[in-house]
C-alpha cells in the first residue's frame, strides 16, 4: 500500500471518481491549472482535461449556485471553497437552495454535490484563513458535514461523499494536509458517512474530537496515560449526522465526557453532543462534561493564535480537572 498524506489521499479519491463517473466535475478558484492553493487538485486537470477540472471566476455564490444547477441537471459537482472563511458569500445558495432542493421538490430535483472546504487554524495564516465553522454549517437542515482526521479516512469518506445523493460539506483540516503519511489503498474504498470511530479504548474519560484536533487529542491521551489516566478517544468524523451511539456507549462506560474542537465554544459542536448525551445517558454522567474549544472571539492573528488553538497540554489540564471532579 502506498503511503499518502492527506493531500494525496484526497487527490486519489478525486482522481478515482473523475475516472469512474463522467458526471463528476471538479472546480473552484485556482483548482484547475494551478491545482489549488494547497495543490490538492494538482495534476487532475492534466489527467482529466479542462472540461472536467476547471478554474472559476472569483465568486463563491455562483460557484455554489452553478454547482446546484449542474447537480439538478444530472451532474455530480465537487467544488472547492478555497478556505472555510470564504464560505459566507455562498451561504445564501447553500442554505436556501442546496440544502432545500430535494425536500422542496419532493425528490424531483436533488443535489448530489460535494463541497470541499479546507478549514482550521494553527497554521499562522492570514485573517479568515483559519476558521472552523462546522457548527454553523451542521445547523443547516439538509446538509451533511464530515471531517476526516487521517489520509485513510479522507479517501474513504470523500468517495462516499461524492457518491452521496445529498449535498455534503467535506471539511479538510489544513493543518493535517502534509502533517503525516499513512498507508492508503491505491484502489477505491468507502467509509460510510455518519459513523464515528473509536480510535483508542480507555476507562475513565471519553474524549471526543475530530479533524485536526485528533492529533492534539492523541497527544493529550498519551500525556494522560503517563499520569495514569485512561482515556477513551473517539473520532467523531461526521458532524451531521452525528454518531451519538458510539459516544453514548463510551460515556456509559467511563461516566465522564470531554469534547475538543477548534471552533468557538458557544453554540458549537460540543454543546450539541452534551445535549444528546444528556438526553440519552444523563444518569451515567459522573461529572460535568468539559468543552475544550476555541473562544467566543475571532481567531487572533498569529502572535496570539497559540492561545486560541487547544494544545495537548491544555487538553490534559481539562482532562485532569474532569477526572478530579468533585474535588
Amino acid at each position: 500500500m502506498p503511503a499518502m498524506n492527506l493531500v494525496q489521499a484526497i487527490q486519489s479519491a478525486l482522481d478515482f471518481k473523475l475516472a469512474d463517473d463522467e458526471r463528476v466535475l471538479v472546480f473552484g478558484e485556482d483548482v484547475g491549472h494551478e491545482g489549488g492553493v494547497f495543490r490538492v487538485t494538482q495534476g487532475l486537470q492534466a489527467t482529466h482535461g479542462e472540461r472536467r477540472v476547471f478554474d472559476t471566476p472569483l465568486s463563491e455564490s455562483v460557484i455554489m449556485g452553478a454547482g446546484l444547477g449542474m447537480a439538478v441537471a444530472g451532474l455530480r459537482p465537487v467544488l472547492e471553497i478555497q478556505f472555510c472563511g470564504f464560505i459566507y458569500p455562498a451561504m445564501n445558495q447553500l442554505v436556501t437552495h442546496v440544502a432545500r432542493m430535494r425536500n422542496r421538490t419532493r425528490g424531483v430535483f436533488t443535489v448530489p454535490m460535494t463541497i470541499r472546504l479546507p478549514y482550521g487554524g494553527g497554521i499562522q495564516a492570514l485573517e479568515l484563513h483559519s476558521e472552523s465553522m462546522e457548527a454553523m454549517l451542521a445547523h443547516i437542515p439538509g446538509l451533511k458535514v464530515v471531517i476526516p482526521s487521517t489520509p485513510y479516512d479522507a479517501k474513504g469518506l470523500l468517495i462516499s461523499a461524492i457518491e452521496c445523493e445529498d449535498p455534503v460539506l467535506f471539511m479538510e483540516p489544513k493543518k493535517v494536509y502534509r502533517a503525516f503519511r499513512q498507508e492508503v489503498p491505491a484502489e477505491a474504498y468507502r467509509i460510510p458517512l455518519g459513523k464515528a470511530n473509536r480510535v483508542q479504548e480507555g476507562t475513565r474519560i471519553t474524549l471526543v474530537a475530530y479533524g485536526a484536533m485528533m492529533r492534539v487529542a492523541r497527544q493529550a491521551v498519551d500525556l494522560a496515560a503517563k499520569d495514569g489516566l485512561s482515556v477513551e478517544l473517539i473520532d467523531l468524523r461526521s458532524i451531521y449526522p452525528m454518531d451519538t451511539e458510539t459516544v453514548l456507549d463510551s460515556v456509559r462506560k467511563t461516566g465522564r465526557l470531554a469534547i475538543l474542537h477548534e471552533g468557538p465554544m458557544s453554540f458549537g459542536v460540543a454543546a450539541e453532543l452534551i445535549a444528546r448525551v444528556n438526553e440519552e445517558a444523563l444518569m451515567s454522567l459522573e461529572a460535568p462534561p468539559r468543552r475544550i474549544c476555541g473562544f467566543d472571539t475571532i481567531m487572533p492573528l498569529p502572535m496570539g493564535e497559540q492561545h486560541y488553538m487547544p494544545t495537548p497540554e491544555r487538553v490534559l489540564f481539562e482532562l485532569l480537572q474532569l477526572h478530579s471532579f468533585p474535588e
Partner: protein
Amino acid sequence: MLTSFDPLKGKRLQLLDEAGRLVKGKFPPLLEGEALVAAYRHMLRARVADDKALLFQRQKRIHTLPVNRGQEACAVGSALALGQDDWLVQSYRELGGLLVRGATIRNHLLYFKGSEWGSVHPGHPRILPLSVPIGSQITHAAGIAHAIRYQGGQEVVLAHFGDGATSQGDFHEGINWASVFKCPVIFFCNNNHYAISLPRHKQTASATIAQKAIAYGIPGLQIDGNDLLAVHAATRAAAEHARTEGPVLIEAFTYRMGPHTTADDPSIYRSAEEEAEWQPRDPLIRVRRLLESQGLWDDAREEAFRAEAAAETDQAMREVDELGETPVDEIFAWQYADRPRELARQQADYEAFLKWKEAR
C-alpha cells in the same frame, strides 16, 4: 436582431403596437395564425387563473401569492420560444410560462395553499421550483447551462427575474459565469418598474437594464414586454445566439398591473394615474385586437374560453380544497435520501406526542 440593438441607443423592440397593429420593420412576427391564437389562449388562461387565485386568497382558501396581471406577454412569449427539452428557471411571477410548459393551475393553487407537491409538475418538465431569494436562481441557470454545454446538448435555459433582482450580487455573478463559459442562457429581466414599493429608478442608476449586458461583453436588448410578438421574437433570437455564442440579456419593459402579492397595497407607493396609463397597454388587449382584425378571434370565443378557464380553475380549487394537511412522515421523509437518526428520533418523539394527544 441582437446586434442591431445597441442598448445605449435607447431603442426598444416593438412588433405589435398598443392598438394591436403590426409594426412595420425588418422583423416579421414569428407567431401567426393558429399559433398566435394558442399563445393568446395561454395568456388568457393565465389571466383568468391569476384573477381567480387572488379571489381564492381573499376567501382564505390559499395563502399569500404573487399577482401576474400585466406580465403575461413576458411569461408566455418567452416560454413559447423554448423547445421541449429546454429549461425554465422561474422567478415567481411567470404563471403563463409555467402553463405553456405543462404545469397545471391545480399545482399553482396547491403550492400557494401550502404543499410542496405544487412544485412537482406532471411529467416533470424542466421547470425549477419558484425561487424566493431574489436573484438567486440566476446562478442556477448558469449552472444548468454549464451542464448542457458539458454534455454537448443543444438545450437552452431561460431564466426569469425582476428589475429588483438586478441589484443582487447573484445577478452579477451568474451572468459573469455564463459569459465566461459561454453557457446557453437567456437572462430575461421582467422590468415591471417596481420591487415591491421601490420604483425602478431608485433600484439602479443605469438608464436601462439592458445596458448592464455590456459589463459582461454580451448582447443586451430592451424590448416592449407587453408585446407578445416582440417578447417571442427576441427570446427566439436570444435562444439561437445562446446555443452557439453564449448568453444574452433581455430587458422586458413591462408593468405589474396588480399588487406585488396579495399582501401588498400598491396605492401606498404609486398613483392611480400611473396605473391608468398602463391600462391600455395591457398585453392581452393588443393581441386580441390583432387576432380580431384577422378574424381569428371574437367576443364569443373570448367568452367561451374565459368560461372554460374559469371552470378549470374552479375545479382545480375544489380539488385542492379537499386536500388535508401534509402527512407527518413527509416532513421527515424528503429532507435527505436516507433518514438520519436525528430525524428519525425527532419524528418518533413527535409521533408519540400525536398519539398522546389523540388518547387524551
